[in-house]
């Protein structure tokens, strides 16, 4: 019947095929009923970028690092008179912070480089528009996404502690305390085998 040498009992493949489809029928389907049921998105989903305006210092790092130049920032300087100080301090005031989501490729570099945590990922994704120009979100709109930003996921208990935490712990313990790398290894109580 066939050129292939090894064959099991005739008709076994046919029965197997039937069994697969029947088994699939009894399982729950994987269909996401999206508009009716909201999808369960994983943490750190890249939906839209939210802006926490107070944190922004107009350092322009994000705009410069953006690979497709979709962040537009305008600002002016303001003098803040500090009583007792010799000179008035200068402060940057943010006038405009736009992200053009028709250009954005969701790489997240702006969020990574922001030294003051002014930019955050929000999992919201329903912001399609009929006009491509409306995809340019100004700072109010970007700020409006802020409440949708989920709290950061808890630290992995087995993971290395953040640099800040480790430094603080070392300072508290005084000089000669173990370094961050050593604390990390010491944390899981059971030592790794072979070390």
């Amino acid at each position, binding site marked *: 019947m066939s050129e292939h040498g090894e064959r099991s009992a005739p008709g076994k493949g046919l029965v197997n095929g039937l069994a697969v*489809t029947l088994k699939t029928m009894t399982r729950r389907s994987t269909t996401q009923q999206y508009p009716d049921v909201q999808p369960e998105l994983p943490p750190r989903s890249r939906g839209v970028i939210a802006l926490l305006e107070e944190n922004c210092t107009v350092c322009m790092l994000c705009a410069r690092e953006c690979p497709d130049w979709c962040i537009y920032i305008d600002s002016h300087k303001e003098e803040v008179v500090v009583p007792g100080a010799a000179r008035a301090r200068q402060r940057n005031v943010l006038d405009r912070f736009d992200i053009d989501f028709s250009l954005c490729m969701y790489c997240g570099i702006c969020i990574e480089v922001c030294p003051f945590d002014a930019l955050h990922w929000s999992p919201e994704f329903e912001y399609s528009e009929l006009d491509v120009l409306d995809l340019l979100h100004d700072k109010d709109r970007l700020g409006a996404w802020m409440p949708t930003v989920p709290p950061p996921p808890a630290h992995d208990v087995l993971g290395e502690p953040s640099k800040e935490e480790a430094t603080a712990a070392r300072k508290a313990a005084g000089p000669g305390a173990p370094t961050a790398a050593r604390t990390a290894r010491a944390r899981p109580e059971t030592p790794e085998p072979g070390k």
Partner: protein
Amino acid sequence: MPLWLDLLVRVVAVVAAFLVLPLLVGQAEHKVMAHMQGRLGPMYAGAFHGWAQLVADGVKFVQKEDITPRDADRRVFQLAPVVALFPYLIVLLAIPLGPGGLVAQPLDVGLFFVLAVLGIGVVAVLMSAWASANKYSLLGGLRGAAQLLGYELPLVLAAASVAMAAGTLSLPGIVEAWSPWWLLWQAPAALVFFVSGLAEIRRPPFDMPIADSELVFGYMTEYTGLRFAFFLLAEYVGIIVIAALTTVLFLGGWHGPAAEHLGWLWTLLKVFAVSFVIIWLRVSYPRLREDQLQRLCWLVLVPVALAQLVLTAAVKVAL
């Protein structure tokens, strides 16, 4: 009951069955196929699990433009869907639902009538294929004609076996004579009948005449709107007819507990069970190649059917 009223009731019943049962099977196919593929299938039409999907489809087909290709043979082209649908409507007349004459038209040669009328369907395939003036249609039609002609032989031989066992050609008579051990005795014939029946209604895995991946849509390529819907309806009535014939000939029709009162229910249940298997096969198996199709028919089904005839005759003589 006056004669005309009796006639009216029967005709209305058959037309209702003709219109409702295919919809049920069609809907079942939507849902069963979807769940077998890990999907949900239609969910919106009619609010509850898409029960009205086929009604919506029907409305859509009615609204579509009825296109006849410029180079087509207009009259033949337009007649073909009706010719495709008509035989199945006629066949439903002869299928017994329950004991005590619960059949639209009891016929002494019911089996023969059914097989003869089913054979007309191939004319519709050739008509639509040729009249479309489309080479894919023609290829599909020729494949279809070769398939239908070939598979009619095992179909008739398998049916002949059961007719021989029952000693009658009347469909109610065959069910009357049926007894459970026939399930074993007539098993090869049942299998042959079912498989060649599948091929007769051109269902996957025997859908080479349609073969959408190679022939666009075979002989149905040029059809739109209501005429296309007729072809689809013919396919689903075809499922009902083949399931009903398999039920009546091989699965004992109305036989079951409390057959006197619930016979019709048993018949319907068995018909739907066989229809489910037809859908199941469609989901599970890929399409056969054209040469595999003919090989299966002539080298497997026909010899098995002939052997079954010998077996039936031997048992019949021995009893």
